[in-house]
């Protein structure tokens, strides 16, 4: 349902703060646009059902509407999550209610009434020289293609220069990283190439989102900008609208939107503006450029296009390239834009009135790769635009060509590299296996060198950063954020144990941050140690089943350590799963491993200490994942 275009808009909207939504939803046009464009059908059904409900709608009642199978429940969860992310649905005491401004605006939009004027105010006097829809389409096409030419032409100077675009648009394209300026020449980037490959509607949204991001830097109110865009989506093509009721920000926007071809004004100070098809299709699925030369290919008879523009548009959107096994490429098109896209990654050879021949060579592919276009993108482009003749066969493209394009890219990348940490000297084979499968379960294992007993993990906080972080305070007063358990209970439980150090020997040491007192610890007091040395099951890592588990592992942390098949080795079980022990281990680990000055490996010393710092940091900030990594080290330590 959600196309890439609305997906981009959705992603942007989700990042906005709640107050922005409240302001946005004051406009009925915005509420309607979001309702019809951004919501999956189930979400629409829920909204419609709740629109006139006076009371909050109990969750249990909603559940009675949904079939209890996995698919339906999944669809419900998605719908509810989208509604909540867009701040349409509010949750209150196990019941849902619609956000008040959204509901009010949507009711207004559906039933009419009010003088909100959010659907634009048509000019009361007719234009002396009315502007035809055809003219608007041509204007929109010219403006939009000029932008695309600029992006493509930046790689191909002969074909550029035909049209020029405003300086504002150029800087916007740079801001959006579609082109980079080297010296005085603009170069297409991989983002730019992805941009070119999108359908027009998605391109417009992509550009508008960059515009939105830039506009907030220019002190333009994003609410004004967004609600004007949504208003544009509800306007009628071929009608002129008055500029008089627009806010200053929106008046300013009109100039930029004229540059993009979204609106047409006869003169820059005209009091009326015409939305073009690019604008009126912003919040619908209709094709944005029906008579576009940019997608005009010569696979269908050009004269038939006027008869059925929509159908021929869809045929034209794809299907004009034939690739042969000898790397020759035939493109049935006469559009300079398409030709210049092809020239990005192939050597053009001959141009006929309706056909271009080209050859894919190593040099042409490598030059594309040098500008940041990936072999994947080239292959995707050739596949989606393959001529219908090729579509009869599977695979669509000759495999030799596809493989060769990939190989050309790989050839330039003779080595693959990952940042991370090499873990060595883990201990016995069994411990090694456990540690590796643990790292694998967490998705950080990159490579293991079984013969050597080493393995390599990527960044330790890779997952940790995505987990909910429980912080006690600003996080800077870190030294108090963790502590070593030194009370008598913890001691008793571990005494007599040859592996864990005696807390009183290791005791508080002013120079060791680890030994600082505990008053502001974010971690609750341990409930009590296991007096029994035998913990019956390896489940203590499951926070749900053992009240004595380390409360620092949030039960909603998203993964369960026992899932990975990782068992706590017996020596560890013997000491129970207890805050105090955990901290002993960390402290000892820190001392032994990371702050010892007699470190023998000279090359690794800096990074090893950095690693220790990272662990401490994780500890202070109560980052669950890194603690798990520490546990892993702890396990290794214990099994020595």
């Amino acid at each position, binding site marked *: 349902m959600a196309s890439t275009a609305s997906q981009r808009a959705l992603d942007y909207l989700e990042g906005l703060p709640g107050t922005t939504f409240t302001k946005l939803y004051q406009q009925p046009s915005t509420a309607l646009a979001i309702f019809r464009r951004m919501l999956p059908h189930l979400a629409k059904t829920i909204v419609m059902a709740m629109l006139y409900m006076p009371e909050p709608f109990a969750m249990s009642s909603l559940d009675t509407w949904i079939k209890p199978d996995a698919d339906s429940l999944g669809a419900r969860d998605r719908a509810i999550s989208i509604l909540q992310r867009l701040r349409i649905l509010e949750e209150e005491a196990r019941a849902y209610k619609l956000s008040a401004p959204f509901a009010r605006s949507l009711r207004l939009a559906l039933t009419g009434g009010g003088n909100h004027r959010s659907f634009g105010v048509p000019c009361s006097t007719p234009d002396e020289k009315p502007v035809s829809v055809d003219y608007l389409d041509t204007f929109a096409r010219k403006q939009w293609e000029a932008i695309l030419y600029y992006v493509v032409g930046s790689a191909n100077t002969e074909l550029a220069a035909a049209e020029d675009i405003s300086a504002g648009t150029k800087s916007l394209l740079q801001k959006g990283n579609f082109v980079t300026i080297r010296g005085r020449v603009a170069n297409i980037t991989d983002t730019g190439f992805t941009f070119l490959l999108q359908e027009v509607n998605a391109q417009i949204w992509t550009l508008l989102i960059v515009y939105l991001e830039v506009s907030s830097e220019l002190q333009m109110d994003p609410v004004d900008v967004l609600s004007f865009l949504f208003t544009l989506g509800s306007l009628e093509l071929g009608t002129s609208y008055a500029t008089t009721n627009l806010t200053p920000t929106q008046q300013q926007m009109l100039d930029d939107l004229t540059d993009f071809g979204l609106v047409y004004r006869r003169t820059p100070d005209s009091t009326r503006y015409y939305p073009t098809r690019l604008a009126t299709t912003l919040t619908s699925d209709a094709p944005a450029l029906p008579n576009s030369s940019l997608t005009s290919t010569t696979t269908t008879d050009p004269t038939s296009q006027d008869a059925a523009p929509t159908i021929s548009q869809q045929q034209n959107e794809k299907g004009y390239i034939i690739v042969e096994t000898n790397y020759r490429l035939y493109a049935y098109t006469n559009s300079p834009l398409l030709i210049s896209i092809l020239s990005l990654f192939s050597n053009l050879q001959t141009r006929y009135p309706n056909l271009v021949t080209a050859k894919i060579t*190593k040099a042409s592919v490598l030059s594309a790769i040098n500008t940041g276009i990936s072999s994947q993108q080239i292959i995707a482009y050739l596949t989606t635009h393959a001529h219908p003749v090729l579509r009869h066969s599977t695979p669509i493209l000759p495999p030799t060509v596809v493989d060769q394009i990939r190989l050309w890219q790989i050839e330039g990348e*003779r*080595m*693959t*590299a*990952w*940042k*991370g*940490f*090499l*873990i*060595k*000297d*883990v*201990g016995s084979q069994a411990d090694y296996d456990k*540690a590796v499968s643990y790292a694998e379960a967490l998705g950080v294992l*990159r*490579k293991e*060198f079984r*013969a*050597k007993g*080493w393995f*390599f993990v990527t960044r330790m906080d890779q997952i940790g950063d995505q987990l909910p972080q429980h912080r006690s305070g600003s996080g800077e007063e870190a030294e108090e954020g963790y502590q070593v358990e030194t009370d008598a209970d913890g001691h008793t439980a571990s005494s007599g144990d040859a592996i864990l150090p005696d807390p009183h020997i290791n005791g508080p040491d002013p120079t060791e941050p680890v030994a600082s007192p505990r008053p502001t610890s974010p971690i609750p007091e341990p409930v009590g140690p296991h007096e029994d040395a035998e913990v019956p099951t390896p489940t203590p890592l499951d926070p749900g089943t053992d009240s004595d588990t380390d409360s620092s592992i949030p039960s909603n942390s998203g993964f369960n350590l026992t899932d990975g098949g990782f068992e706590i080795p017996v020596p560890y079980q013997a000491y129970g799963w207890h805050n105090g022990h955990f901290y002993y281990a960390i402290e000892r680990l820190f001392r*032994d*491993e990371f702050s010892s000055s007699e470190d023998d*490996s000279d*090359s*690794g010393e800096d*990074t*090893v200490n*950095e*690693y220790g710092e990272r662990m401490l940091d994780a500890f202070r900030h109560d980052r669950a994942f890194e603690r798990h990594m520490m546990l892993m*080290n702890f396990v*290794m*330590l214990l099994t*020595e």
Partner: protein
Amino acid sequence: MPRAVGGVLVECDPSIKAIISRINDQHNHDIIIEDIDDEHVLIKKDKHEELKALLKDALRDTVKEAEETSESE
């Protein structure tokens, strides 16, 4: 005692590995931290870009001729 060594793990063909070793020798052994096996080395984080550039140069010198022949048709 387990040890964690930070760095960049490089995976490559044995032939490329040989070139990397040679580059390492030419640069005071200042690149490689750990020679793991024929296809893997651990290198210093800050030397990664430098090594990439050096490798590119080395390849340009050695592989060029082969490319020329395969390209002609």
